[in-house]
């Protein structure tokens, strides 16, 4: 009887426990890397203009800044290097983190609809292990985890120019997206057959946001907050876990006393710990601060157009721990932007150099990210 109970308990432990999945880098742990939901312009300033920039889907009040209809698209390839005691390896990840359109609807109101990446989990991990089948028998095994996809934030926002110095905005968010997870395990021993398992994790959740912008003669300020609703992850019709969409609040303050220029600081707090229930027992989300300082300065003229030059610095804690420790990211950014086609096309470029590390984890990571944004007035 006792041995049967023990067997049942062991079986239950085996059934309930699942491997804690992580990728072989610091930045895509847990549900992935938070791209920040910044426009390329904001990236160039380190993120300091996020609450004020109408091209960044952060503060719904900034939507009111769009004077005309507009479509915005962004790409951001990341070139990452991870160094550990086992060596160094490089990866390249293509991201398309931000796309939206805006349309004035009269009455000093502008509506915007778009999607941005909340957490990008795309990665592939390959490693070799030895499985011990019993006291005498073992087999070398190669495991390949491929995860494609991201958690996305689809926002419908309404901005309102209440006064010349006051803009208000509200937003409704649908958290969607999917992770395609595929595991392939193969063996050198020909008596074993390789196998592959795959599934698609789907996300569904909701959130709401509100924001305000105050515009003065030499200063502008933006504040916004997102209240997270329910969030669940499911496979087809089966819900695997439930949690809450992380809440966020942020504030930017910019000095605009220099013509066509802005020097700004920003801070934001994200409640990533609310995602802890969305994974296995080992998943731990970290509430983190994201702070930045930067500038967007009118530079030399190219003909009749102005070339805007940008630079900034950012520091933040990433949402998920690596090996049980918080991961810190510090980045230096730079960029430029200008218009084309008689002001119909706005093009921005930004370069981000980020370094990531975690205390007591003998590994570090650095990455170069190129951000290219194009906004077009049809």
């Amino acid at each position, binding site marked *: 009887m006792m041995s049967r109970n023990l067997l049942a308990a062991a079986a239950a432990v085996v059934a309930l426990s699942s*491997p804690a999945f992580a990728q072989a880098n610091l930045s895509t742990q847990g549900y992935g890397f938070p791209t920040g939901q910044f426009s390329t312009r904001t990236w160039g300033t380190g993120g300091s203009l996020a609450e004020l920039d109408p091209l960044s889907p952060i503060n719904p009040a900034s939507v009111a800044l769009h004077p005309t209809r507009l479509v915005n698209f962004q790409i951001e390839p990341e070139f990452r290097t991870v160094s550990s005691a086992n060596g160094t390896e490089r990866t390249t990840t293509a991201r398309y983190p931000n796309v939206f359109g805006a349309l004035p609807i009269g009455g000093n109101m502008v509506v915007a609809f778009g999607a941005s990446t909340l957490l990008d989990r795309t990665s592939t991990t390959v490693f070799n292990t030895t499985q011990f089948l019993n006291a005498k028998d073992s087999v070398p095994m190669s495991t390949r985890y491929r995860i494609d996809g991201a958690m996305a934030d689809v926002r419908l926002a309404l901005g309102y120019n209440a006064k010349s110095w006051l803009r208000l905005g509200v937003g409704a968010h649908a958290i969607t997206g999917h992770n395609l997870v595929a595991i392939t395990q193969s063996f050198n021993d020909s008596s074993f057959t390789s196998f592959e398992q795959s599934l698609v994790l789907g996300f569904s959740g909701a959130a709401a946001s509100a924001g305000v912008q105050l515009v003065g003669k030499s200063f502008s300020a933006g504040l916004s907050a997102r209240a997270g609703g329910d969030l669940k992850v499911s496979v087809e019709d089966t819900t695997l876990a439930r949690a809450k969409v992380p809440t966020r609040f942020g504030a930017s303050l910019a000095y*605009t006393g220099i013509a066509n220029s802005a020097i700004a600081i920003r801070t934001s707090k994200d409640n990533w710990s609310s995602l802890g229930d969305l994974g296995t027992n080992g998943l731990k989300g970290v509430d983190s601060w994201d702070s930045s300082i930067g500038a967007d300065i009118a530079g030399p003229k190219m003909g009749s157009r102005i070339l805007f030059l940008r630079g900034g610095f950012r520091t933040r804690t990433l949402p998920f721990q690596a090996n049980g420790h918080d991961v810190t990211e510090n980045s230096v950014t730079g960029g430029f932007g200008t218009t084309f086609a008689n002001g119909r096309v706005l093009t921005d470029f930004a370069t981000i150099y980020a370094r990531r590390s975690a205390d007591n984890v003998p590994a570090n990571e650095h990455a170069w990210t190129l951000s290219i944004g194009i906004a077009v007035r049809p």
Partner: protein
Amino acid sequence: MILSTAELRPKAQSAEGRSNKHPGENVLRKKFLMLALGLASVFSIAACTEKLESGTACPLLCPQQAAELKDTTIDAIVYDTTISGLPPIGAERYLMLASHGDTLETRAIVRFDTLPQTFTGGASTDSIIAKLDTAMLVVPIVKPDSAHRPKTAITIEAYNVDSIPADSGASTLPTDTVASVLATFFRPNRLLGSKTFAPESLLDTLRIPLQPDSVLDRVVGGKRLRVGFRLIAPAGQGYDLRIGTTSTSTPVTLRMIASKDTAAKPVLVTPLSSTPKDQSFLAGPLADYSIVLKGSSAGTNQLIAVGGVPSRRSLLRFNLPSRIVDSTTIVRASLLLTQTPNRRVAIKDSIFVFPTAVLAQSGTAITDVRTLLEFVGFAGQFGLDSLKMAPGDSGVRSFEIVSLVRTWRGTTAAVSPREVALRTTTEGQTPGQVDFFSIEAAPGLRPRLRLTYVPQTSFGLP
């Protein structure tokens, strides 16, 4: 102000546009080129090939990643049996002509039930065959390698084994494949021809001359010519040959030359069986076949066997727990059989034994095991590999059948029979027989199934 995105407002006319009113086309072209260059840069960078594979930092940054394998060995075989005489007579790929003293004696029968009565002469005209200059049997064989050549010369005799003429004794058409009846025709007054072959002369083809008068009698009389081959090995030495068949498109051929004119073409006759009459499906395979005169081995319920004389196939039926077959991913399935030595004949000559799927549905549709074992796959089907072993060997043999067991997932036994057949690649062609202990044997010797599988896990969640 920069924050107002004023640069996106349409301008009435840009200063650049005003100053270049007449060279406006150049200005527009430059703007278009700049825009095109920008877009090209964007798409070029977007087209960068992703390189996502990483893993050097494991297990530090990716602990407990590998799915755990479970391994178990179970007594999953609930039924096993051996059926003798498979493949059925006439379906052999090669005819086994064997002489091993009292241990084993087989004969090969080739039927030429239709003989042409004309030949093409020197002037390309057809003439009636009135005489035969020579008659010969051209016998393709599997060339023996250096390890399987006889030590001294062997003799092959050819006999008339047709049931007609009248001195055929008790033979009647319905019994014209019965070994005991056909054995009576191998007597001196029915000898058609013979030849002795030195060991080094055993190449791809043997030529055995026949008595032209005996063959001519069959041709002129419109009769059948049925030839029985007998191998005579030196005393104390057993030997066997493999003769080509119609199944492999390398049959024994009768070659007749009806004229001394060198321009006359030889008449070539390939095997054909006309009995059973009006049943071509049954008659066809009987164009050439083997019979066993001596040495048929008997089985015991403690053993299952493959190969041998007559050739055998075995069937094993499984009862696997659904929790493993249907709810896990099986990565290894090994059928563990314990071989016991069979020292009757050819104990050192290795043969290939392979597992294969039973392709017919057992149960209500087919209850006869012999019929089931006639509907089995071929070597290598379902990725099932063979093992090489000699009849005189012993020990545990592991047949990997994971690719077959995986097909059972999610299906019932009615759709995917939980059965495996064992065969040899040379069944009916060589005398060696491999024996394994059956489920009736002592517990430690019985067939078992070892499974290695990955239990279902809720992977994907971090």
